[in-house]
C-alpha cells in the first residue's frame, strides 16, 4: 500500500509536469462554465442541476484523456520495465495510477466550487443536492478512471487508449437513451447499466446503496480487468 501511494504521488505530479493537466482543466472549466451560465439566467433558478446534468457527457470525454497515458505511455517508452522490476506488485501499480487520476479529477472539480458560491449569493441554494452532486461527480470520475485505465492497458498507443476509453464511457453514459433499440425483456437490465441514471440519483442528494454498489462495481471490474491484462503481459 505504501508503494501504491508513492506511485500515486508520482503520477499526480506527472500530470502537472506535462501540459495535459492545464489543457484538460482549462477545457473542462470552459465547457462546463459556458453551458452552465448560458442557461442559468434563462432558467432563473438557484440550483446547479444543469451543471451536474452535463457532467457524465463531459467526463466521458475528459477522463479518458487523463487516463490514456497512464499505462500506454509506459509501454511505449519502455519505462514499464523499470517500473515492474522495482519491488512493486501489479496491485500497487494499478491502484497508484487509479488513485492519482481520481485525485486529479478532484483537483479539477475544486475550481467549479465557484459556481455554487456564486449561485448562493444570487439566491437561496439548497446545499444538499450540491454536496450529492460533488460526491456523485467523484464516484463517476472514479468509475470512468477505472474504465480508462483498462483502455490504457490494452495498447501502447495513447490515441487508441483514448478512443477505446471514450467509447466505453460514452456507452455507459448514453445507454439509457438507446433503449428503444432493445427488446423489452432486456430493458431493465440495460437501464441499470447506465451511469447517468445512477449519477442523477446521487446528484439529487439521495445516496442510495444501489447507486453506490453500481459505481463500486464499475471501479472494481475496470481495475480487475486491468490487472488481468497486465498479468497476461507478464
Amino acid at each position, binding site marked *: 500500500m505504501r508503494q501504491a501511494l508513492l506511485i500515486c504521488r508520482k503520477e499526480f505530479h*506527472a500530470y502537472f509536469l506535462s501540459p495535459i493537466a492545464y489543457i484538460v482543466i482549462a477545457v473542462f472549466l470552459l465547457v462546463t462554465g459556458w453551458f452552465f451560465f448560458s442557461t442559468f439566467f434563462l432558467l432563473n433558478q438557484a440550483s446547479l442541476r444543469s451543471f451536474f446534468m452535463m457532467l457524465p457527457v463531459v467526463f466521458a470525454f475528459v477522463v479518458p484523456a487523463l487516463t490514456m497515458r497512464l499505462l500506454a505511455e509506459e509501454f511505449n517508452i519502455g519505462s514499464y520495465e523499470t517500473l515492474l522490476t522495482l519491488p512493486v506488485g501489479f496491485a500497487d501499480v494499478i491502484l497508484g495510477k487509479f488513485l492519482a487520476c481520481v485525485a486529479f479529477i478532484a483537483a479539477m472539480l475544486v475550481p467549479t466550487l465557484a459556481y455554487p458560491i456564486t449561485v448562493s449569493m444570487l439566491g437561496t441554494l439548497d446545499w444538499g443536492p450540491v454536496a450529492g452532486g460533488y460526491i456523485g461527480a467523484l464516484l463517476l470520475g472514479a468509475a470512468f478512471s477505472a474504465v480508462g485505465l483498462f483502455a490504457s492497458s490494452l495498447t501502447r498507443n495513447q490515441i487508441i487508449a483514448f478512443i477505446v476509453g471514450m467509447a466505453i464511457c460514452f456507452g455507459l453514459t448514453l445507454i439509457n437513451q438507446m433503449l428503444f433499440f432493445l427488446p423489452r425483456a432486456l430493458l431493465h437490465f440495460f437501464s441499470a447499466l447506465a451511469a447517468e441514471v445512477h449519477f442523477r440519483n446521487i446528484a439529487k442528494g439521495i445516496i442510495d446503496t444501489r447507486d453506490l454498489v453500481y459505481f463500486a462495481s464499475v471501479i472494481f471490474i475496470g481495475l480487475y480487468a486491468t490487472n488481468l491484462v497486465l498479468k497476461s503481459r507478464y
Partner: protein
Amino acid sequence: MIQVENLTKHYGGICAVDRIHLIARQGEILGLLGPNGAGKTTTLRMLTGFLKPTAGSIRIKDYRIEDHPLKIKAILGYLPESAPLYHDMLVFDYLQYVAGIRGVDPARRLERIRELGELCGINEVMHQTISELSKGYKQRVGLAHAMMADPEVLVLDEPTSGLDPNQIVEIREIIKRIGREKTVIFSTHILSEAEATCDRVAIIHRGKIVADSRTSELKERLGGRNHIRITLDQAEPAAVERDLGTVAGVARLKVLEQDGPLVRIGIDCTPAPDPRPELYRRIKQTNWVLLDFHQEARTLEAVFRELTKEA
C-alpha cells in the same frame, strides 16, 4: 548468488531461450555475450521477474522467483536496455521516487542520491529533465537507479551501449568495483568489454549457451594458441613447407596464397616453445626475401566468431 536451471522461453512458436543453465556467485561478474537477437535480453528479463519463463527455475539467494517475486525485486537492481526512464521528470525527482519505492531510509535519502550522483557522474545534471539528457547521461541515471538500494545482485542490459569511449571506461570501472562484493550479470555484444570486465563469460547464441567458463580459461581453451603469418618473396611453396614445417612449436603450416614468387603462409603454434626465433634463423639461411612476419594473438573475438558461426 544466482542459479538458473533449464530456463526456457517461447514467444508464440519461437523459442527465444532454450534450456539454459547459468550460475553467478557472489563477488563475481558474469558476462552474457552474444550477437543481436541471441536471447540475452529475454534471459535478463526473466531473471528480473519482468517476464515469466515458459519452463525452468530461477533462484536468487535463497528465493525462487515464482514464490517470492517481491523479495527478489527488492535485492536486485536492474538497468534495462537503453535505460527507459520517465521523460518529463527531473533526474533528482526520479531518483528520489526510486529511493522511496526501494524503501531507502528517508533520513539517508539525500545522502544516498548524492553518493550515487558522485559515483555515476550525474551531479551536474540532477536538475535537468530526463528527456534533455544525452544517451550517455541517461544510461548513467539508469545505473544510479539500479544501484539505489545497494542491491546484492545487479543486472545490467548492455550498460555501455551509446556511451563514448571515456564513459565506457568509467562505467566498466564502476561495474568492476561493485563486482568485488556483489553479484553482477551484464549482457553485451562487445567482446573486448566482456574480456576486460568479466570474471566469467557465458556465450549465448540462438537461445543456447554455447560456452560458459572463466574468461581466461575460455581464451586459453579455444584461442590461447598464437597464429603467425609470414610473407616471403622469391620462395617455393614446397620448399617453404619442407623447411619451416619441421620447426619445434609449429603445429600446422599452411600456404595461404601464392602469387608468382610471393608466398603467404599461416602457422598455428603449439603453446610452447615459441617457434619464432628458429623460424627466423631458417629463413635467414635461404635466399628468400622476408616481407612480413607477425604474430596474431587469438582473442575472444576469434573464439566468439568460431562458436557463433552459422552452422
